[in-house]
């Protein structure tokens, strides 16, 4: 069901992670992603696992919400694992049939790659669950602000505004899509059966109303923004100023330890 997609939704709680500056969180997430990719052996990956789980726990977001995000991408996960299973032919042969062999090396690789993806999903979910979409946007805007000096001032603002609105309307549009789907099903539309072509065709009665309503929403939103004195962001101030706090210091120390750990374990083993 579309409703099961919770990725990109803020979870309200009080935790060190929630308190961190969005800029620090974005940079840390990027660092995490890079480091997860550079961890080359089981030891450094295990260390990454422990660190990610540590972050999940201190974020105070229910673990099942993270697991739910995995459910949404299990196909990708399974696909990656299977490809990697056959990719490597090192180690002992476990199973062999026709021209395919599954080796211990393959199994190792499959688990390794799947774990990496899981960690990536987890760590990026931490960012979206603990950061309100708007402060995320503020963070990105602030990080991109050096671009202003090369004449892209307006572009940065427009990008940030687009992100804000997109994040705000994703749940609304998902709900709307579901309503339209149900309405067309009630008129006898068959969305589940038929050939690929038929199924694509069956989407038209859903996509057209969705498109039309999005245009209507966009128009009404533009009017509402105008009524709230929006004029393209000229002279705009912010209620929430981004300031670094103690939590950010902890976060930076944590990532330093994490970086050293991964690199150290990569070198040692």
């Amino acid at each position, binding site marked *: 069901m579309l409703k099961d997609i919770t990725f990109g939704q803020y979870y309200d709680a009080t935790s060190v992670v929630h308190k961190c500056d969005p800029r620090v969180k974005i940079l840390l997430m990027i660092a995490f992603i890079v480091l997860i990719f550079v961890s080359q052996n089981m030891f450094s990956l295990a260390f990454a696992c422990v660190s990610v789980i540590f972050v999940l726990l201190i974020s105070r977001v229910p673990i099942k919400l993270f697991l739910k995000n995995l459910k949404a991408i299990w196909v990708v996960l399974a696909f990656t694992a299977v490809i990697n299973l056959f990719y490597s032919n090192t180690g002992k042969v476990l199973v062999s049939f026709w021209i395919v062999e599954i080796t211990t090396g393959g199994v190792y690789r499959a688990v390794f790659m799947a774990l990496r993806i899981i960690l990536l999903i987890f760590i990026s979910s931490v960012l979206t669950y603990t950061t309100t979409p708007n402060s995320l946007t503020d963070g990105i805007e602030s990080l991109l602000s050096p671009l202003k000096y090369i004449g892209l001032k307006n572009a940065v603002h427009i990008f940030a505004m687009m992100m804000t609105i997109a994040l*705000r309307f994703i749940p609304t549009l998902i709900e709307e899509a579901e309503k339209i789907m149900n309405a067309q099903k009630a008129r006898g539309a068959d969305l589940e059966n038929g050939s690929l072509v038929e199924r694509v065709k069956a989407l038209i009665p859903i996509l057209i109303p969705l498109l039309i309503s999005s245009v209507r929403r966009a128009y009404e939103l533009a009017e509402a923004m105008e009524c*709230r004195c*929006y004029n393209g962001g000229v002279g705009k101030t912010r209620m929430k*100023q981004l300031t670094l706090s103690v939590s950010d210091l902890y976060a930076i120390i944590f990532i330093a330890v994490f970086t050293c750990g991964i690199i150290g374990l990569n070198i040692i083993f």
Partner: protein
Amino acid sequence: MDNIIEIKNVTYEYTEDEATHIAVKNLSLNIERGSFTVILGHNGSGKSTLAKMLNGLNKPTLGTILVDGINTLAEETEIEVKRRVGMVFQNPDNQLIASIVEEDVAFGPENLGLPPKEIRQRVDSALKAVGMEEFVSSTPHRLSGGQKQRIAIAGIIAMEPECLVLDEPTAMLDPKGRREIVDTLHKLNKEKGITVILITHYMEEAENADRVLVMNDGEIISDGKPHEVFQNVEMLKSVGLDVPQTTELLYALQKNGFKVNTNVISVTDTAREIKKVLEGV
């Protein structure tokens, strides 16, 4: 009299399918500062067009509109007009910009370029004024229609407008949400002295207004206190409107030879009116 809005001989024309339509016809109207006005009219009677002219979203084809003495046609004072006359629309979903309540309410004051501290104060006091202070960090998506609409109102109040224009803010709400909104508007009107102009299809929402206007074909065809306007049952029905069921009852009784006054609206007053007749017999 101190008028917040003065409309002088205003006409609004628009072109659709190569034909010119007149949405508002040579209309003149003053809105007193601090008053509570309800505008009734069927779809296409021109009330939305009129509403959008009050804060300069629509510009009159002919005539002038002064908001606090400022002409809405003047481009350099556009923001001044919008700051003074805030607008709330029908669909709360399409008015909320941010995914967190407080950030949404802050949008207006941020656009006005106010200092962060003042924005914070205004956001908190606006949320309090609409009774939504406990939802300060909720996501609008999880709120009920009535609550969302109150957030939309808070977003306007935070700009500290003189006047609030609401274009069918209750059309998509359930009775509970409708009551929440109407109560909130009366509270803002009484406590903060904000002028309220409420456009609605629900006759009972006009009950406690200072003044009711009825629009039809771009013109005002009735203007007065709620009980005065609702006395014209036949006229209201002829322009596709309705009357509160209390009025309908009194009117039906009158038609059946009962000597009742039809100039009351509330349930208690109606009951008292009928009691008089019963006891008189």
